């Protein structure tokens, strides 16, 4: 009985028709063109990814550069077209949406970039930066625009407002610039925030402040948040759920504490082994790091994509068959043969 419930609850978190955001068997492939030869294959940046995100929940997406995080995010934002599969957001199917509807779809998602300075137009002051999305989205009432600007600047603690509004991006510190980016992402009162490495360019001292601000906005506005990062140490303070991506696929999905305290996938284990807390003992040890580098996404390895680097690789299985999503405990899924009842062995 309990097993059945567990099954349902896990499946719940990769498929659920009621959820605000549903990523359904999503494939995002980029076509490679070679001059004179035409089609030369695909970069399979996102390859059969599925998960759901409920209103008011935060989920972290962790993985190294090139694993497909930005491609996934851009698709959710409606900037990439799904090659296969779909994104359902707020009851709208992305693959069915065009033109004016697509604009409306996008206006309900706030986007926070990695590099705040690069994200802000250098010749616009804070006032124009915040007004622009409202003008584009047809908020004609000047007073309403003013009201929203005041409210959001108050919330992101960019005060006194009158002093902030005329400032240009270069006049602000990195932390303040990121607050402007967050304010702009919030100005259309979105239901979902997508934050792509929002603090990786900031100093540790400011990083925590920005993460807390995001958490506060998330709770107060009951927002759904997709937090993309390569840094596992920041997720503990941020999200309910977390998934790890490798070479275009999700390899592990769990509640945040489960994943950090009880990691299962060999790749997740490697990421954790490689991330350190400040400690003088660190200098005395050589860390066990898998050899090699992530594979090309044009011709990803057969079977498990991690198998050429995996210290636990089982020949004849991992290098041949793609691992299924195995539920190790309720709501904890791992795509690795080690956890298969017949083929696997514990590590």
């Amino acid at each position, binding site marked *: 009985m309990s097993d059945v419930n567990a099954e349902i609850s896990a499946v719940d978190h990769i498929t659920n028709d009621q959820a605000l955001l549903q990523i359904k068997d999503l494939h995002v492939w980029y076509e490679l063109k070679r001059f004179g030869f035409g089609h030369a294959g695909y970069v399979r940046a996102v390859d059969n990814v599925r998960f759901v995100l409920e209103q008011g929940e935060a989920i972290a997406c962790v993985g190294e550069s090139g694993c497909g995080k930005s491609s996934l995010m851009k698709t959710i934002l409606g900037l990439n077209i799904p090659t296969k599969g779909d994104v359902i957001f707020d009851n709208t199917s992305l693959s069915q949406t065009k033109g004016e509807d697509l604009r409306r779809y996008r206006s309900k998602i706030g986007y926070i970039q990695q590099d705040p300075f690069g994200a802000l137009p250098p010749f616009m002051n804070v006032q124009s930066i915040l007004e622009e999305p409202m003008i584009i989205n047809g908020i004609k009432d000047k007073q309403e625009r003013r009201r929203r600007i005041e409210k959001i600047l108050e919330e992101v603690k960019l005060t006194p407002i009158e002093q902030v509004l005329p400032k240009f991006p270069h006049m602000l510190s990195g932390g303040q610039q990121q607050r402007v980016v967050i304010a702009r992402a919030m100005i259309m009162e979105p239901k979902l925030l997508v934050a792509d490495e929002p603090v990786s360019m900031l100093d540790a001292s400011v990083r925590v402040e920005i993460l807390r601000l995001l958490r506060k906005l998330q709770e107060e506005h009951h927002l759904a948040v997709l937090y993309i990062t390569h840094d596992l140490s920041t997720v503990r303070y941020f999200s309910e759920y977390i998934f790890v991506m490798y070479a275009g696929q999700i390899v592990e999905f769990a509640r945040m504490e489960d994943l950090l305290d009880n990691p299962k996938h060999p790749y997740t284990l490697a990421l954790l082994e490689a991330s350190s807390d400040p400690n003088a003992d660190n200098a005395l040890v*050589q860390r066990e790091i898998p050899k090699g*580098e992530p594979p090309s996404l044009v011709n990803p390895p057969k079977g498990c994509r991690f198998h050429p680097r995996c210290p636990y690789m089982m020949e004849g299985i991992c290098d041949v068959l793609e691992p299924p999503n195995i539920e190790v405990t309720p709501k904890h899924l791992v795509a690795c043969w080690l956890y298969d009842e017949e083929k696997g062995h514990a590590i």
Partner: protein
Amino acid sequence: MEQQNELVLKVRNLRLYFNTHSGPVQAVDGVDFDLRKNEATVIIGESGCGKSSLAKAILRLLPRNAGTYDGEVWLHDKNIMKLDDESFRKEIRWKRISMVPQAAMNALNPVLKIGTQVAEPAMVHMNMNEEEATKAAVRMLEHVGVPVDFLHRYSFELSGGMRQRSALAMALVTLPDVVILDEPTSALDVLTQASIMNLMKRMKKELETSFILITHDIATSSELADNVAVMYAGQVVEVSDARRFFTKPLHPYSHALMASVPRLRETIEPEFITGQPPSLLNPPTGCRFKDRCPKRFEKCDEEPPTVLVDGDRKVKCWLYV
């Protein structure tokens, strides 16, 4: 007291200011620290506190607008600040002290093969002929884990990790006494970062080289540190051995910095530091951290002295006087 390794580099009261329209920027303002053989001293601090400028000051790589530049840099028993530019260039830079500059992996020459680039410093600074230099380059590339057949590749054909290893090989090929690493892993992924750290730990033991590691990342700094110097607004506010520093930092800024690090294996909530570092154009008189310091008291309006605590730890703070 336990036997300490031989002193390699001793920096005393080093200053480097930059002239600007608005006045001098006091980027390095009276910095002291030591480096011993087969050890690493890490310089930690937030961006803009003067870390890269300190590296430039040690290597005398001065921009055009450099102003005040003085102090002592002792390499073994020689104060190299006293050398004229010509001798410094010939005898010190690359040969005795070299650097992997910030973002070096993106600064490799795109039209030269990796092997040629790594061999070049050996030819220019060690008077080796091409054959000798190539041999030295091959040896060093092997040492840092770049496959030999990469010798004939161009930098754009290499991954970030391999490019960073090549940059490291370039700095090491002259077998210098000291290598300065300016944010060597900041742009790299966690696994690559960790394997480069593994490599540097090995080099520190195997080669006759000592490292100055500059970073804003406190967790990473602990991967290599034997000693720690904390920089704030152009000054070093604490110097300590790594063991005592990471268990019990002394300076209130060091405390705050340590508390701001999100932890993976502990559930303590990180704390941010309120306010912002001061401008280096007109730094406040007295302690430069005072406006952000939770322990501030009357004394802090005067310049704090650097005092010895627990024997040989140094801290620039009135609380310890």
